[in-house]
């Protein structure tokens, strides 16, 4: 019970930490809105040339754009959550202090990252999404149950996102400098999550492969749940499956890494 309170406090801290930078949040909202505006016209042109592309109609494609901009920061699709900080701690050796703490390393960072994600959904996601919904024709469900399913899918997406980035961060135990891995993670995140283009638009076998990878849990899955294009339960199973696999692998890698840590004495 006590540990539950601890992680709740860590999550609240993650939320408050990001909430502190109001100007940065406003700037992010502005930038996401501008990018949404640019993308939405390219999507409209694409769906003009080929209506019903990937099974979406034009309103669904527009909704998809604004959903992507709303969730980009929260799900850290291109990276940019906790991993830079954790990698820095591994590089400098501060990680030794973290390992001494009476708290689990993975759960600690998961809680902090979920707190951050919650803030960024509210602080950075709502305004661009509302802007899109007001100025463009969007396809949103009326039933509360669809919205509830969407929120569950977003929570699972945040877990998958964390699982991936935790592995990225732990690579610093072996590589020391995480620049290359971070960059690869960014590329994979943008390409395979549906941020670049909805995955159901990808042609042939490439589409089938990217839709089976964990990244598709991050944007494509919640979007399809909200747009009524996917069965929520099946989507949850897919997302939760990947989340469990990634978190379990993270745990294995963590124990392998901590066994080989040698703290520089002094």
């Amino acid at each position, binding site marked *: 019970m006590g540990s539950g309170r601890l992680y709740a406090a860590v999550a609240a801290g993650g939320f408050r930490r990001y909430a502190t930078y109001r100007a940065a949040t406003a700037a992010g909202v502005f930038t996401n809105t501008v990018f949404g505006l640019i993308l939405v016209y390219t999507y409209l042109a694409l769906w003009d040339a080929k209506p019903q592309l990937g099974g979406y109609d034009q309103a669904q494609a527009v909704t998809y754009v604004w959903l992507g901009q709303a969730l980009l920061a929260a799900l850290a699709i291109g990276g940019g959550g906790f991993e830079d900080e954790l990698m820095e701690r591994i590089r400098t050796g501060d990680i030794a202090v973290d390992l001494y703490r009476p708290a689990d390393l993975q759960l600690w960072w998961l809680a902090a990252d979920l707190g951050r994600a919650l803030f960024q959904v509210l602080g950075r996601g709502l305004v661009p999404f509302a802007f899109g919904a007001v100025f463009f024709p969007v396809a949103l469900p009326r039933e509360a149950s669809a919205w509830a399913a969407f929120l569950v899918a977003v929570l699972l997406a945040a877990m998958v996102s964390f699982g991936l980035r935790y592995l990225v961060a732990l690579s610093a135990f072996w590589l020391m400098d995480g620049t290359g891995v971070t*960059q690869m993670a960014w590329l994979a995140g943008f390409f395979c999550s549906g941020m670049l283009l909805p995955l159901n638009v990808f042609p042939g076998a490439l589409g089938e492969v990217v839709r089976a990878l964990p990244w598709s849990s991050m944007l494509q899955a919640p979007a399809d749940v909200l747009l009524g294009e996917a069965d929520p339960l099946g989507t949850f199973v897919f997302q939760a499956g990947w989340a469990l696999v990634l978190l379990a692998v993270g745990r294995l890698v963590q124990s392998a890494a901590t066994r080989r840590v040698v703290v520089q004495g002094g």
Partner: protein
Amino acid sequence: MVDAADAAEVTAGRVERGGRVAEGLRAYRLIVAMWIRSTMAYRTSFVLTTLGNFATTALDFVAILLMFSRVDALGGYALGEVAFLYGLTSVSFGLADLAIGSMDRLGRRVRDGTLDTLLVRPAPVLAQVAADRFGLRRLGRVTQGALVLGYALATVDIDWTPAKLLLMPVMLVSGAGIFGAVFVAAAAFQFVAQDASEVSNAFTYGGTTLLQYPPTVFARELVRGVTFVVPLAFVNWLPASHVLERPYPLDLPAWVAFAPPAVAVACCALAGLAWRAGLRSYRSTGS
């Protein structure tokens, strides 16, 4: 506390105007050379980060290729023509980004107080900020843009005239000038908005993303905005309309295709004024 910005201006005031520009360029060259030497100390890292830069910027073009795997034209433009627009803006933006792209770190310098160090050095602040942490890896973006431009020139059947040939280099250099002005103006804004440095991304990265697609795709108001307010349309849309013999956006007269150099000069002058105003308003936090 002595106002550092004023102090720097007093020092600078002693030097003549023309001499100041030469001095700035010299300082810029020296600092850039220093960063290049520092980069080259880690050659493998340089090669890898340049490849990474290449790959991340190529992702935008992958999106366009994916779109064209499903359609034959976007806004009435074929793949080769979109690639032409893409290549032009990517090379222009890439050059500006290579030269002064690190200016978006200014907000951080204002926050942590390290800008004061630059103010007391005997070199123009703009040159120092522009050359700060010069990233040679940004050649990756320029290379990627140039390859797409080469592909476009090979596939699109352009009816070349002397004017069109001349327009090609002029448009690339002017485009770099316009994007450079946007970078400087965005940096000037950071004196006021410190934490809000991400806003500049909307105009720099957002601008080049916009220009990768044909103007026919976008709403009239948006095209009007990037023609008359932030004149990004002069980077490629308008001159490329002449080269590709396409109707001009907003029914603009034909001579606007040759306006980019004048627009670039005007933009740079305005950005220079904005920079001076920003620097003048800077008050150090002290300790």
